[in-house]
C-alpha cells in the first residue's frame, strides 16, 4: 500500500461525500413542502401567511437556493452542519448524540451474528447432511427471508406483550441503568443480527467444506494430528478469510437495516431524527445525517480496500 494510492483513495472518498451532500441538498429543496409552513401547521390548521413569512425569514429560507448552498458548503469546511430548522439545535450535536447508539446496535447485532453464525457453520460443515445441518440451513434460509420489521414486531409481541419478559422498546443510557439498557438492546440486536447470522452461517459452512476438501487436510490427518487441531488451526483459519470479507461488506448494509429496527423498537439512534427531519423538511438535519451515513459507508469501504491492499499488494499496483 503506497502513500500516493492512499491519498488518491481518500480524495476519491471525500469527493464522493461532497457529491452525496450536494445531491441530497438539491433534491430536498426540489420536493414540495415548506419547513416554515409545516412547523406552524401541526395544530391541524395553518397559521396566517404573515406568521409563515416571518418564520421563513428567520430561518433564512427566503435566500436563493445557491446562497443557501454556499452557506452550507462554507459551514461544512468549518465542520459546522448548521442548526435544525425545527428546534434550533445544532445538527452536529444531534449526530454526536445519536450515532454511538446506532453503532451500538450494529455492533451488538454483529457480535451476536458472529457468535451464532460461525460456530453453527463450522458444526454444520463438520456434520454435513446431518440433522443439525439440515435444520440450521432451513432456519438460515428462513431468517434471510423474513423482513427485519416482521421479526421485530414478532419479538415485541412475544417477549413484551405476551410473556412480559422484556420491555417493548425504548432507550435508557447504560450509565443510568445498565441492566435495563442491556434488556432494551437485546431485541434490536437480535432483529438486526439475524440476517447477518444467516449469511455468516452459510458462508462459514461453504468455506469450511471447501477447506476440508483440500489436500493439506488429508495430509494433516495422515500425519496423525489431533482432529481438533486440524479443524481449528488449519481448516478454520483458512476458511475464515472469505467470512471476514463478507462480514466487512455486510456491516455497511446493516446501517440500512437499523432504520427499521430503530423505528420498531423505539431505539433513538440516527433513524428517528432522520425520518422526523424528512417529514418536517428540516433540510440541515436531513443533509447532516445522510452525509454522516454516507461517510460511514465510504469509511468502511476504504478500510476494506486498505485491508485488501495490505493483504494483497497487487491491489495497489492496478
Amino acid at each position, binding site marked *: 500500500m503506497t502513500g500516493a494510492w492512499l491519498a488518491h483513495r481518500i480524495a476519491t472518498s471525500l469527493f464522493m461525500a461532497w457529491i452525496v451532500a450536494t445531491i441530497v441538498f438539491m433534491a430536498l429543496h426540489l420536493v414540495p413542502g415548506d419547513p416554515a409552513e409545516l412547523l406552524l401547521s401541526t*395544530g391541524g390548521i*395553518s397559521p396566517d401567511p404573515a406568521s409563515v413569512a416571518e418564520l421563513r425569514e428567520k430561518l433564512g429560507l427566503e435566500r436563493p437556493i445557491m446562497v443557501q448552498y454556499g452557506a452550507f458548503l462554507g459551514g461544512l469546511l468549518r465542520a459546522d452542519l448548521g442548526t435544525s430548522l425545527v428546534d434550533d439545535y445544532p445538527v452536529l450535536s444531534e449526530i454526536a448524540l445519536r450515532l454511538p447508539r446506532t453503532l451500538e446496535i450494529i455492533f451488538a447485532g454483529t457480535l451476536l451474528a458472529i457468535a451464532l453464525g460461525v460456530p453453527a457453520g463450522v458444526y454444520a460443515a463438520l456434520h454435513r447432511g446431518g440433522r443439525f445441518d439440515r435444520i440450521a440451513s432451513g432456519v438460515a434460509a428462513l431468517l434471510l427471508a423474513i423482513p427485519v420489521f416482521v421479526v421485530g414486531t414478532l419479538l415485541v409481541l412475544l417477549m413484551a406483550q405476551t410473556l412480559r419478559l422484556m420491555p417493548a422498546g425504548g432507550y435508557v443510557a447504560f450509565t443510568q441503568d445498565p441492566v435495563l439498557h442491556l434488556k432494551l438492546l437485546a431485541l434490536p440486536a437480535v432483529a438486526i443480527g439475524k440476517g447477518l447470522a444467516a449469511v455468516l452461517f452459510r458462508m462459514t459452512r461453504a468455506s469450511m467444506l471447501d477447506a476440508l476438501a483440500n489436500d493439506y487436510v488429508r495430509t494433516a490427518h495422515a500425519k496423525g494430528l489431533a482432529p481438533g487441531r486440524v479443524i481449528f488451526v488449519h481448516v478454520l483459519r483458512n476458511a475464515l478469510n472469505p467470512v471476514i470479507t463478507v462480514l466487512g461488506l455486510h456491516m455497511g448494509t446493516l446501517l440500512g437495516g437499523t432504520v427499521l429496527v430503530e423505528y420498531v423498537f*423505539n431505539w433513538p439512534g440516527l433513524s428517528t431524527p432522520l425520518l422526523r427531519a424528512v417529514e418536517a423538511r428540516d433540510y440541515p438535519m436531513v443533509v447532516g445525517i445522510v452525509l454522516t451515513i454516507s461517510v460511514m459507508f465510504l469509511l468502511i469501504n476504504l478500510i476494506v480496500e486498505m485491508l485488501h491492499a495490505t493483504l494483497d499488494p497487487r491491489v495497489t499496483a492496478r
Partner: protein
Amino acid sequence: MTISRRTVLGAGVVAPFATLPFLSRPARAQRASGILRFGLSAFPPNLQPWVSTGASAGTVKLMTHRSLVSYDSKGELRGEIAESWSIDAEGAWVFKLRQGCLFHNGEPVTADDVKWTIEQIAGEKSTAYMRTQFQDIERIEIPDPKTIRLVTKTPQATLPSWFANYNTFVIWRKSAANEPIGAGPFRLVGQERGTSLDLVAFDKFYKPGFPKLKGIKFVVYADENLRNAALQSGDVDIIEYVPWQSMAAVEADPRLKLDSVEGPFMDVLFNGSKPPFNDARVRRAIAHAVKRDDIVKAAFFGRGKPLEGVPIVEGTPWYDKDLARGWNYDPARAKALLAEAGFANGFQTTLLSTAQFGMHKDTAEVVQQHLAAIGIQCELQLPDWSTRVSRGIRGQYDMAIHGVSADNNDPDGLTVVLDTSLSPTHGRSFKVDAPRTIAALARGRAEFDQTKRVEIYKDMQRAALEEVPLVGLAWRSQGYGMDKGVKGFTNLPGALTTSSGAMLEETFFG
C-alpha cells in the same frame, strides 16, 4: 474433561432459566415513587408556549404552564390564573386574577405578565397560533394589579375560551427568549432528546394539594403499535392515541382501561376556484353519495360514528337531530343533483390524501368507491404528509380528505374549518364560496345571549348544508389507554380531547 453433546444441550436448556432474574420486570416500582409514565406519540419539536407544535407538545406544555382559564373534566371552562371573568357594560372582557399564583422562579403572576403575554402573541413578528384572534384585542387595561380588561375591536362571545387553548400560556414577562417561565403544576427537569421528558411537581403550585403526582415521565413511542405494546407490557402507565385496531384488546385486558371519546372528525375538502367544485350542487351531491358506515368500519375498526352534517357534538345545545343528518346517504339524490348541475354522466377528478396516515388513505379509498358509484371517477393522490400540506395550502388539488378537530366544543370553534374566507390552509376548502355560513359564524361570535346563539348556529348549519364548505364523513374515536390503577384522569369530551393533558394535575395512583 470431555464435553459431551448432552452437556452442551443441557447447558442450552438451563441457561435461559438462569438469566430469568435478569429478565424479570420491576413490579410497579413507579407507582410507589409517584411518577406517572406517559406514552406520548411524538417528541415535541419544541415547547414554545405560543407556537402550535401538535397535541403531544400541547400535553407537555399543559403541565409546565397555565393560562387564565382551562377546562374541567366535563369540558366546561374553569378558572386558573383568572379567578373569574365577565363582560362589562361596554362589552369588554374583565378577568380577575387569583391571589398567590407563582411562576416557577418564585415570581408572582401579575396583570403585567398577562398583558405582556397577550402583546407578544398578537405582535407583528409573532408566529403564535392565536395571533389572528389576539390581534382583535384593541386595548389591554389594568385598572388594578389583580384585574385585566380586554377591549376588542369586534364583539367576541367566546374570548375566554381563547385562553384555554394550549398555545396561549401566561409567561413571566422577563423570561429569556428561549427560556419561557410558566406557572404550571409541574417543572421540566430533564429531557433526552427524541426519547423522553422528565417533569417533577412544582411545590408552590397555586392549588393546594395539586398536583397529586410527584412527577411525570413522558416517553415517546412514535409507532402506534409499539406504544400499545408498551402499555400492555407495563412499560408505561398511560398512553395517548390508542390505535383503533387495539382498542378492543385494551378493553379486554383486565389490567387496563380505555377512555375514548368521539372528538376529531374526517371530512372532504374542495377546491372551489374552478369547475366542477365551484358549484354547490356538485359538492352536495358528494355529501349525499358516501355511505359513512363503511368509513367507520374500514378506517376506524368500528371505533367512530357516521357524520352526516356539520360537525357539531351530540349532546350539546347546538346539536339538532334533523340538521345532523342533512347530508344523509342518498345516492339517488346525489345523482339527481349531479344531473341538475350538468354532470349527468359524472366526471373525472382527483382526490388528494396521504399514504402516511392509514386513516386518511383508508377514508379516501372508501370515498373513491362511493363516488365511482354515482359516476365520479377519482384518481387517488397519496403523497407524504408534508406534500399533502403544501398542496392543500396552495390549492393544488380538486378534492382532499382531511382529519381535524374543532378548536373547542362551541360552534365558533368550527370557524377554522368552515370559514373559507380565511387565509388558505390544508385544513379548509380552497376558495369555496360559503357567504351565508361565514356570516352566521360572525353573528354567533358577536352574540352573547345563549338562546339567540343556539338559533344562530342552527341557521349556520342550514346554510352550511346548502353551501357545503366541507363534507362531514365520520367522527373518530380518540382514546387514552391506561393501567386500572391510574385514577383521576379524564378524556375531555369532543374537540377538547387533545387538551386532556390538563387532567394530569388531578391524576394519581389509586
